[in-house]
């Protein structure tokens, strides 16, 4: 585990590389309610992986089980191939950046960062060298003598990061580390964190409820809901072809229309709406409905072009007719709410690239988009977003 061995890690998706951490059929039950429900997850060497989901979805519990702060009710946890399910946190080659940073208030910055190294009885000179180099990496040189209480939120976060990274763990767990920072600082730290991860080459498991954060930084991410993973893959894959209605609505905005699959086979399936209009969906983006024909067809707002009512539909495109209800200018673009003939309201987002005449509210328009940008998902159980569930007591 030398520095040079970790120096370079490509940003590509980490398929086929060594599995660093693995959850096998992990279930955690708190007071009869499953917080994590038969979870399977593999994290690869060197990747930046995010667990994304609303509060109460079990993402923090999963992280705490990896850290050793919770024991699973059933299932196995492997770290570097070794079963650590019931191992104490201080025996695990894993370090955590806590949500509140949890810096030691009685120690200065140097001693905070050196804490883990001292517990491992490293030589004094080596401790000083590694703490110094980590404080350099997190951009906090000459802060050694300060106390945690004398630091700003952003600085505390950097210390927490340095304190964990200095031990060169197999896996770094980050539990919503940005939640206490303001929006501007958060965006700065996202870039910074990604830079640091690339520089040190340590595997990051990042837990967040902020989809933008997860998409910006991750090599891969998983969207969790009610203790289960609903979608997993690279941010682009999960965004462009969400596997469930929940993923489609939680990760970015989606327009979803209810319809029935009327023909399959070939590269595109056909879905018929209630008003008999049809949409084409790439066959590989149609979920296994298990015989049922009810699906929801989705398209992202920025994929849709808005045109005049009499505009022709280019070949290979889906088209819907409607009337603009609201048109909002946001500076970088225009956002439209369009009522379609089938009674569904669609959101359309058009970039401000200087087009001459933007449709106004009341105008009849045609919405078109390339058929390959269409996806279909099974209607969600219960039909509502579960992002207001009670949170999992930390």
């Amino acid at each position: 585990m030398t520095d040079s061995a970790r120096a370079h890690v490509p940003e590509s998706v980490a398929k086929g590389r060594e599995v660093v951490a693995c959850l096998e059929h992990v279930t955690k039950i708190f007071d009869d309610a499953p917080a994590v429900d038969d979870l399977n997850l593999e994290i690869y060497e060197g990747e930046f992986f995010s667990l994304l989901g609303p509060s109460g979805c079990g993402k923090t519990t999963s992280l705490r089980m990896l850290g050793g702060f919770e024991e699973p009710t059933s299932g196995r946890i492997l770290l570097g191939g070794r079963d650590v399910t019931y191992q104490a946190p201080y025996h695990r080659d894993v370090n955590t950046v806590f949500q509140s940073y949890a810096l030691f208030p009685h120690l200065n910055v140097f001693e905070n960062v050196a804490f883990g190294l001292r517990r491992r009885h490293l030589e004094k000179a080596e401790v000083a060298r590694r703490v110094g180099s980590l404080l350099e990496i997190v951009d906090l040189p000459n802060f050694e003598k300060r106390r945690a209480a004398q630091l700003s939120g952003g600085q505390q976060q950097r210390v927490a990061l340095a304190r964990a990274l200095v031990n060169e763990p197999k896996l770094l767990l980050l539990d919503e580390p940005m939640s206490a920072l303001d929006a501007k600082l958060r965006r700065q730290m996202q870039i910074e964190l990604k830079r640091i991860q690339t520089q040190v080459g340590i595997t990051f498991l990042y837990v967040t409820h902020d989809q933008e954060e997860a998409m910006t930084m991750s090599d891969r991410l998983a969207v969790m809901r009610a203790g289960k993973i609903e979608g997993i893959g690279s941010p682009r894959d999960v965004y462009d072809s969400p596997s469930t209605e929940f993923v489609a609505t939680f990760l970015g905005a989606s327009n979803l229309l209810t319809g029935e699959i009327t023909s399959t086979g070939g590269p595109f399936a056909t879905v018929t709406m209630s008003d008999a209009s049809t949409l084409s969906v790439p066959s590989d983006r149609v979920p296994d409905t298990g015989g049922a024909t009810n699906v929801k067809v989705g398209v992202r707002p920025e994929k849709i072009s808005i045109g005049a009512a009499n505009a022709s539909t280019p070949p290979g495109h889906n088209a819907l007719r409607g009337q603009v209800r609201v048109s909002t200018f946001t500076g970088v673009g225009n956002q439209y709410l369009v009522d379609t003939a089938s009674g569904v309201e669609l959101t359309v987002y058009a970039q401000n690239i200087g087009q001459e005449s933007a449709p106004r509210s009341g105008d009849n328009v045609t919405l078109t988009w390339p058929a390959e940008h269409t996806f279909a998902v099974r209607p969600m159980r219960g039909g509502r977003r579960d992002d207001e569930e009670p949170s999992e007591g930390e």
Partner: protein
Amino acid sequence: MDESVLTDHSRGVKKERHSSGWGKKLAPYLLSLPSGLWLLLLFIVPLGILLIQSLETCSPATGACVMTWSWGELPHQVSLYHQQFITSLIFAAVATLIDLVISFPIAYWIAFYGGRRKNFFLIMLLVPFFVSFIIRTIVWEFILSNNGFILTFLRNQHLVPSGFHVLGTSYAVIAGLAYNYLPFTALPLYVAIERIDRRVLDAAYDLYANRREAFLRVILPLSMPGIFAAFLLTFIPAFGDYVNQEILGGTSNTMIGTVIQNSFLVNFDYAGGASLSVVLLAVALLGIWLYARLLGTSTINEYL
């Protein structure tokens, strides 16, 4: 918490204050007047009288005292009773140490594992102390007496020799002191431990500290303010205590409190008693100062 409501509220208060400038200036003094008078009449004045008395010479026959600036009285009293001072110091220190060792696990357990019943457990800890100090000590006299159930049992089981006794020994006095001052140790400890962020403990475990190291490197240093407060609140009253020694002790382990009490109430040597009280006060202050220097309260204050 709605911040806008708070700021609106404080703005309202400001307006009111502006309307009466005099009241605003006088308010802090008026508010502190009752406690200030209380302290002046019942603490500062008696302390002054005590200091004056320690420099007077009193006639043993009439009890009348005259100011003679007899500074020599202080070292004289110390030379007479230094043994009792040392006994008090040792008894109070041992009792405080025992209290810290007993209270820490209790306070730790209530603070970390008490859950919703924290207050219930605290009350349970305090219930015995609703009973008067003297009565509690007399009950201890029953418990430790030669015919008490503990010694009777131990003798019957032949676990101790037939002549074994506890009452009248230093152990009995220390036990009584430790028992009587336990809440003064437990409560400040509880308050300090309760304030420790549990996540900091998680962080210690995460950074390879086992349970023992996490305790020594994190819990104990973060409990230091509580330990310091507990020490002050236990050691100082125990140092000057005379009830425990009077009831549970014998003649060989007289504490300074008993000497002072006798000076005032038995020998009517007001000047001597006052001198001893002044020395006691000085020793206590010196002890606190040393303790603060050694354990560094400044570093404690920094993160409070």
